[in-house]
């Protein structure tokens, strides 16, 4: 192999040094040879583990469950957003006031009924005449 001599480009770097015995090219070549040789001579146990790791990587990444899980989260998010939008923008029911009317009617009806003896203050019954007079006075206010 014909390699260019890098020493000629940097004469000051190498003068008076034993580094001249080993040119850049030889250093590079030697380093790469050792590296490749070390790669080839990985012990069998480690080589087996590397092989198993490769198979596992290829199998794990190729499983369809990953594709499902990949789409599961975005699909769920879209569904939640759609549901929320539907709830927010749904028009109010036309008979929305009807329950209030019913409540008012029930309240009026309660006013017509006699008070429940169990829930009413006993003082009311003791002074019933007074409260009757008071109610009558409210309906016909006197002028002074």
């Amino acid at each position, binding site marked *: 192999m014909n390699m*260019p001599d890098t020493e000629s480009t940097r004469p000051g770097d190498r003068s008076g040094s034993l580094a001249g015995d080993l040119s850049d090219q030889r250093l590079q070549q*030697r380093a790469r040879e050792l*590296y490749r040789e070390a790669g080839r001579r990985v012990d069998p146990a480690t080589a087996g583990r590397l092989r198993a790791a490769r198979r596992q*990587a*290829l199998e794990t990444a190729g499983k369809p469950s990953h594709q499902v899980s990949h789409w599961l989260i975005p699909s769920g998010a879209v569904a939640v957003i759609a549901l929320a939008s539907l709830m927010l923008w749904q028009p109010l029911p036309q008979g929305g006031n009807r329950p209030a009317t019913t409540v008012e009617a029930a309240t009026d009806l309660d006013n017509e009924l006699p008070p429940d003896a169990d829930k009413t203050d006993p003082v009311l019954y003791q002074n019933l005449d007074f409260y009757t007079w008071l109610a009558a006075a409210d309906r016909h206010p006197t002028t002074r």
Partner: protein
Amino acid sequence: MEPENAARDDTGATAMNTAVDALGADMVLDEATPATLDAFLAQVERRAFRMAEMQLRHREDAMDAVQDAMLRLVKHYRDKPATEWAPLFWGILRRRVVDLQRRRKVRSIVVGWLGGGHDKEGDELPVWEPADQSPGPLDRLHDVQSYADMAAAVNTLPRRQREAFMLRMLEGLDGKETAQAMGCSEGSVKTHLSRAMHTLRDQLENWR
């Protein structure tokens, strides 16, 4: 950087690039681009382990890094063209190694906070590193000492210089691929590489 140093780096980088190209023509092209991801990973997995091991100096961490890099490559980039697999894979592995080194550093700091960083006399203990009890992987390697010397010298380099040297020189990626794997420009790769070679020349002057 000073202009004089920059000019020297540029000159060195240019010469380095020429040298690497010449070397690459002889050694890099001996591997054809694999057709399948399985074949690609089978081709690089052992070297990837060595590269991670050289930087992490721990076999289990190196195994974790390679395993994770393989998984991520297959998971995220399996549909990419085969010509892009190499820079993508080495880039992923590079980041995993950096992550593990950072975690180790944090662990070391925590150990220091808990009082493990100093001995009884108050002297600072060496940085904590996980124990590696597994048998040495290079028992059968003829050039054990040379490889160990090279690994030790490479580990003294700053991180970016080390990455440039390993990807460009050892793994044989071209300038563009190395830049892609390192996440920087080709010019930066050349500068890092030039400085790395300058340091290694001094450290390995008696190296064979």
